[in-house]
């Protein structure tokens, strides 16, 4: 039995400690002390349970925080990593370069078509030259036909048949000339269309080349910027991973520290056992006190003890035990800390 602690408790509340052999008043004091110790034992048990519940909640919260932080970092790392070893930026750069190569190939093909069109235009010029020759032949044939008609006319009746031949020859020459002229018009239309197409292609090629160059520059700059961001994110992720591990260690340490609450509970239980032992030994000494003196002393001591209570739960527990009405007492003094 630790009498020094009991004495210190009484001194803390400025009460007179129990002194054996002092009569009925002392017996009333013992009664009040025993009663209060019982109530304090109950409160200590309740406090121990509250602390244990709080520690369990905090520990679970810490574990949850650590788990969530670790999961978040792992998820980020998983989405960031690529099994092939290439970063997404590398993949995008490769795809963009391939696309630009295709565009450049297409532009080169278009340029080749433009050159082929120019070659076709050269062929059309040759065709026009041939048509000139055909028309020249047609004109000469017409001239020959006219000459034949004149000769036929000079022969009079003897030249009628020859005049018919000359007329047919002239008609054929005219047809040849007309056909040549039609072909010339078609060739001219075809040449104009080809020239327009060629000019459009050349213009498009120039624009494409310019756009490709600008796109290459823009894509390169964007990819460089993305690569820098990617590296920064990678570094941040690595740092987050390190912080997460450190956080886990800190939380583990905190949880381990909180587990010492068991020692607190055990010590409180020991104190309760000690209080119970003291009460059991003191209780026979209170039997000589009258019930009224017991009640009066218990009310005085309880009132004194309650003056330091700040929470309603403390006061309620006390009220239930001391059996007198405190509902009207000092409502303004109630201070809830939480």
């Amino acid at each position, binding site marked *: 039995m630790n009498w020094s602690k009991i004495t210190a408790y009484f001194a803390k509340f400025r009460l007179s400690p129990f002194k054996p052999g002092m009569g009925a008043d002392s017996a009333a004091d013992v009664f009040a002390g025993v009663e209060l110790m019982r109530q304090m034992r109950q409160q200590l048990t309740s406090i121990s349970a509250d602390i244990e519940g709080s520690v369990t909640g905090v520990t679970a919260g810490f574990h949850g925080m650590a788990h969530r932080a670790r999961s978040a970092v792992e998820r980020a790392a998983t989405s960031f990593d690529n099994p092939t070893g290439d970063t997404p930026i590398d993949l995008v750069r490769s795809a963009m370069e391939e696309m630009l190569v295709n565009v450049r190939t297409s532009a080169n093909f278009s340029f080749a078509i433009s050159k082929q069109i120019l070659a076709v235009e050269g062929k059309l010029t040759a065709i026009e030259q041939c048509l000139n020759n055909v028309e020249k032949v047609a*004109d000469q044939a*017409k*001239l020959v036909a*006219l*000459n034949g*008609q*004149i*000769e*036929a*006319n*000079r022969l009079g009746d003897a030249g009628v048949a020859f005049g018919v031949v000359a*007329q047919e020859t002239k008609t054929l020459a005219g047809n040849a*000339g007309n056909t040549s002229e039609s072909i010339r018009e078609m060739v001219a239309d075809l040449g104009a269309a080809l020239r327009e197409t060629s000019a459009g292609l050349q213009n498009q090629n120039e624009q494409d080349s310019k756009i490709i160059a600008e796109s290459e520059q823009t894509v390169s700059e964007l990819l460089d910027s993305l690569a820098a961001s990617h590296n920064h994110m990678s570094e941040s992720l690595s740092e987050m991973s390190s912080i997460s591990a450190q956080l886990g260690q800190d939380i583990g340490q905190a949880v381990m520290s909180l587990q010492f609450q068991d020692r607190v509970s055990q010590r409180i239980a020991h104190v309760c056992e000690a209080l119970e032992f003291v009460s059991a030994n003191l209780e026979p000494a209170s039997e000589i006190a009258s019930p009224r003196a017991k009640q009066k002393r218990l009310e005085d001591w309880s009132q004194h003890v309650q003056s330091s209570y700040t929470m309603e739960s403390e006061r309620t527990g006390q009220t239930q035990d001391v059996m007198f009405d405190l509902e009207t007492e000092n409502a303004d003094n109630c201070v809830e800390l939480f």
Partner: protein
Amino acid sequence: MSQQFEIKNDGKTSTLRLIGAVDVSTATALQTALLECVSGASLESVQIDCSGVTHLDVAAAQLILAALRLPDIDIRVKLPDEPGVRDWLASGGIDSLLVASDAGAIA
């Protein structure tokens, strides 16, 4: 081209002007000149101007007459206004040309 022939072309009408003596020695040149005048594809009419002719032999006259008979070509012949020359031309034996003149082809 002999100096006895002048050819003018305004795009619509081709004019062959005969000058001086036109005889058998110039028949080939005359035929070539006639063909050149009548072969234009876009010509509306051909005029053979004989107002400057001082002599026209039968062979040349027959050549002009043959040209006048070309189908699909409007050919007109302008004879000299001066009656003496016109009579002299007539006396030169170009009756058929005058017949053609009566038909309206010769002014």
